[in-house]
């Protein structure tokens, strides 16, 4: 089977896809890191529907 020679456009397209992939991976890492920091520092992790309820109330 005869494969055509790689065109410049494919190299450019690969570079673009790789760039987008790396940006997405970095974004996931940032969101993960931020979540860990927020939880560790005792930030608000419950949604607004939990406002005003305490742990005791929830358990009851």
């Amino acid at each position, binding site marked *: 089977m005869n494969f*055509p020679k790689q*065109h410049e*456009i*494919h190299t*450019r*397209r690969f*570079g*673009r896809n*790789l*760039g*987008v992939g790396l940006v997405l991976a970095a974004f996931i890492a*940032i969101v993960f*890191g*931020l979540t*860990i*920091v927020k939880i560790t*520092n005792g930030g608000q992790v419950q949604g607004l529907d939990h406002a005003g309820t305490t742990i005791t109330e929830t358990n009851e």
Partner: protein
Amino acid sequence: MSDVTLNPQAQEGEASFGDYFALLKPRVMSLVVFTALVGLLVAPVGVHPMVAFSSILFIAVGGGASGALNMWWDADIDRKMKRTMSRPIPSGKIDAPEALGLGLTLSAFAVVMLGLAANWLAAGLLAFTIFFYVVIYTMWLKRLTPQNIVIGGAAGAFPPMIGWAAATGGISVESVLMFMITFMWTPPHFWALALFTKTDYGDAKVPMLTVTHGRRATRVHILVYTFILAAVCLAAGFTSIGGPLYLTVAVVLNVLFIKGAFKIWRRDDAAAEADNYLAERKFFKLSLLFLFVHFGALMGEAALAPFGLGGW
């Protein structure tokens, strides 16, 4: 058969990752990152490094998004000016609607993410900055008034205020003064450049002070703004972010800056042409150092504080 042979026209116009990055005006973004970082670090509240890093990153993305929206709107005049004709849209690498889509998406993304990472005041300030730069400056006033440099400067002055808000959750005298430093610095910086460069803003029908009010008026404007800038820089030295180091740096730089502005004001174009605009060129070079060193000194005060040396 490869798809290369199917549609060669479309493929030639396909942009690389670097073209999309260029759409975000990376050079402007570097100033945004630096001043926002100073605003965040000099704040009297400790911020977790991860939150600080993310906040600066999202501020930078917001700044980049406004750059993309600016290029989308200004594509018509960018085609006419030598300095801008190689930008991604006028050079045909990226379509204008694509730039609009990227700009709007990244704007919304940056504002929401900054709100989640830091707080909603910082996110609101970032949203306002993008709106101010794109709608008030780019779409409305840039082509209408010769004070466009002053208005554009305001948009570029917000990042340290956003950095401060990300750390403290508020606005204070200190953050407003950091805003004022960049705001008052921008006009003399650009007008000095306008005096010694032959720009083609006239062809693009963008009113510049040197053309609409003349070069004499521009020289007067530079001197007046330099005096106001000195007052703002010194005032910042007496707040909680200032200290002996910053104040010394501010006094020295502002004396030199006023001296340079006075030289520019005193002479006319005939004298300037005789020495190839030496005073204007020196003033412009000093202005580049001016902003960097001022914000660097503020950061220096914050860095020395843990050792009992920084601040008052």
